[in-house]
């Protein structure tokens, strides 16, 4: 059935991975090309860090944010989790004919506000308009660059006994979109935010980090497990999630661990420093917690309050497209 592209190919699960692997571009001096950002050795122990991301979301405005907010945070966070500070972003807009100017203004103002607050300039950009019905409202692409000392790259080897830390409650971004789409009344707003300050505070104490966007912590933990050839065990009762988030996911029959966050990351730290990492992260989000540990093996196991189960890489379309 793979002779055409379906929505499953863009859902951050196995199908997307297989599609990307099939592209098979020629090998270059760029490293970490399958990571959140790629890196390039520019000499004197420095690495250039580069990433790009396109954003399409329905609805464009949702509780606590909009597509512009996401587009800024998404790319910034992909640089941050490598340990890099973003130097600047590009911003490309593809807009549907007939899109309201005042809505575009709101989107741009969100980006401007974040750009100023975090001192991350929009260095370059592009704007295209497509005919009515040729594109769904608006698609935004952002790319970002940063520079980092090679020794500070957050791609250090994960070892058995290390602790797994989550920076805040799961699923809030996805549930904010779902509540808007299904007309549920909730207090949940998106978790979308730049992770710059959090990462600055803990980067010397952690080995690796990944922001839990598409595919949620299921995708992230399985990725870290596979790259480092280790197993993991996470304790369901220690995983932070707001009650409303849990209930809505149960009601819709979707897996909380597969839901996208836009301002949460998973990081791995040595047993000795993990407590300090959580303490620092709690200043930003009181729900930050150690959720599990690295063990031998090759699977990610969830220990529930009853029995155990395996947490697999998400497949198929995880939820309605939300980021």
């Amino acid at each position, binding site marked *: *059935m793979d002779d055409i592209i379906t929505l499953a190919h863009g859902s951050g699960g196995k199908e997307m991975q297989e599609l990307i692997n099939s592209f098979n571009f020629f090998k270059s001096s760029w490293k970490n090309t399958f990571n959140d950002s790629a890196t390039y050795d520019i000499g004197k122990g420095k690495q250039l860090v580069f990433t790009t991301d396109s954003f399409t979301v329905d609805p464009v405005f949702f509780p606590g944010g909009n597509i512009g907010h996401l587009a800024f945070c998404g790319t910034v966070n992909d640089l941050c989790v490598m340990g890099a500070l973003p130097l600047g972003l590009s911003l490309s807009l593809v807009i549907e004919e007939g899109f309201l100017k005042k809505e575009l203004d709101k989107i741009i103002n969100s980006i401007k506000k974040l750009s100023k607050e975090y001192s991350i300039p929009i260095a370059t950009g592009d704007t295209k308009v497509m005919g009515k019905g040729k594109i769904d409202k608006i698609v935004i692409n952002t790319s970002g660059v940063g520079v980092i000392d090679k020794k500070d790259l957050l791609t250090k080897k994960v070892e058995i006994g290390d602790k797994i830390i989550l920076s805040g409650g799961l699923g809030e971004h996805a549930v904010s979109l779902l509540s808007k789409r299904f007309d549920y009344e909730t207090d949940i707003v998106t978790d979308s935010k730049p992770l710059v300050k959090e990462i600055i505070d803990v980067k010397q104490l952690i080995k690796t980090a990944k922001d839990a966007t598409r595919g949620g912590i299921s995708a992230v933990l399985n990725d870290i497990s596979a790259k480092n050839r280790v197993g993991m065990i996470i304790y369901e009762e220690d995983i932070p999630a707001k009650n409303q988030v849990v209930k809505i996911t149960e009601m819709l029959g979707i897996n909380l661990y597969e839901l996208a966050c836009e301002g949460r990351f998973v990081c791995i730290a040595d047993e000795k420093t993990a407590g300090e990492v959580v303490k620092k992260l709690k200043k930003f989000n009181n729900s930050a917690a150690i959720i599990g540990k690295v063990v031998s093996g090759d699977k990610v196991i969830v220990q529930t309050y009853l029995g155990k*189960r395996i947490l*697999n890489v998400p497949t198929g379309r995880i939820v309605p497209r939300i980021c």
Partner: protein
Amino acid sequence: MRNKKFIDTHIRKIKTLSEKINKNITLMEICGGHTTVIMKYGIREILPDNVSLISGPGCPVCVSSQKDIDCVIELAKNNIPVATYGDMLRVPGTRDNLEKIKAESGNVFEVYSTTEVISLKNKYPDIVFFGVGFETTAPMTAYLLKKKICVYSVHKIIPPAMKILISGNVKIDGFINPGHVSTIIGVKEYKEIEFPQVISGFTPEQIIRGVSMLLELISKNENKVVNGYREVVRNKGNEKAKRLLNEMFSVEDSEWRGLGNIADSGLEVADNGLNAKIKYDKIISSVPEPKKTACRCGDVLKGLIEPGDCPLYRKVCTPENPKGACMVSKEGSCAIYYEYGK
């Protein structure tokens, strides 16, 4: 309700009863929603060795016949707009699935609620709703019929299938009856099935309590139904929904994947003018009977084998490339085993 103490009490009770019964006991959970919770919380591993839980046919996507899927694909290929629930899009037909036709033609619409079909009708007056599900979702389809929307119905009703399972090749000692279906049909209809049954809710606590209630019935040789989901299941069920079903559907024989044709087990659109099978008879009659494949969904649905016993499971049949319906739906046994199992 996360209540370890409650669970411990019932697990102790289950242990005592299973020792008292002192033989292998097989309980079937009819509903895929129950299977999900059982696998998600690893409930099987905390039950005594002689008590096993097997999954039943309670995944509507899974029991829909291949022929029906092929027919709806044929409608969409003939430029008739089709709307249905997301899970149906990925069920493999003989050659294509609806997801592919959606990507190719734009004639297929994924909906989360039947009310979305009403808005689609404004833009696509000929829209056909591919109605799937048991007594739980059928009332919503009945509502669409009231709104004069054309329907291709593969809706099915559960009690006739339970009767077939009892007389089948699989030794079953008791049923965990589906919670959501029971909110509609109530308790009464199960009474005709003289067999140990407990209606259960969907928390791990409710399921474990259901197992202990079921063992109690079995130990006393009591062939009756107990309502273990009194929070939402009434004796007479949801009378308004039942009236709507009676008004818009007629009960007819229906083809179940795996179980074959079961008498009086399907809900067919009563109004011929709104029945897509009649309205588009010319297109549908050209669809050939599907060929038999190595897929053993049928045996999985009957409880004859576990997903891992199928030669295709995990080898060529995976959630991203499902060969059989049970691997498609999040409520399908194979997909649930794949997601939560080894």
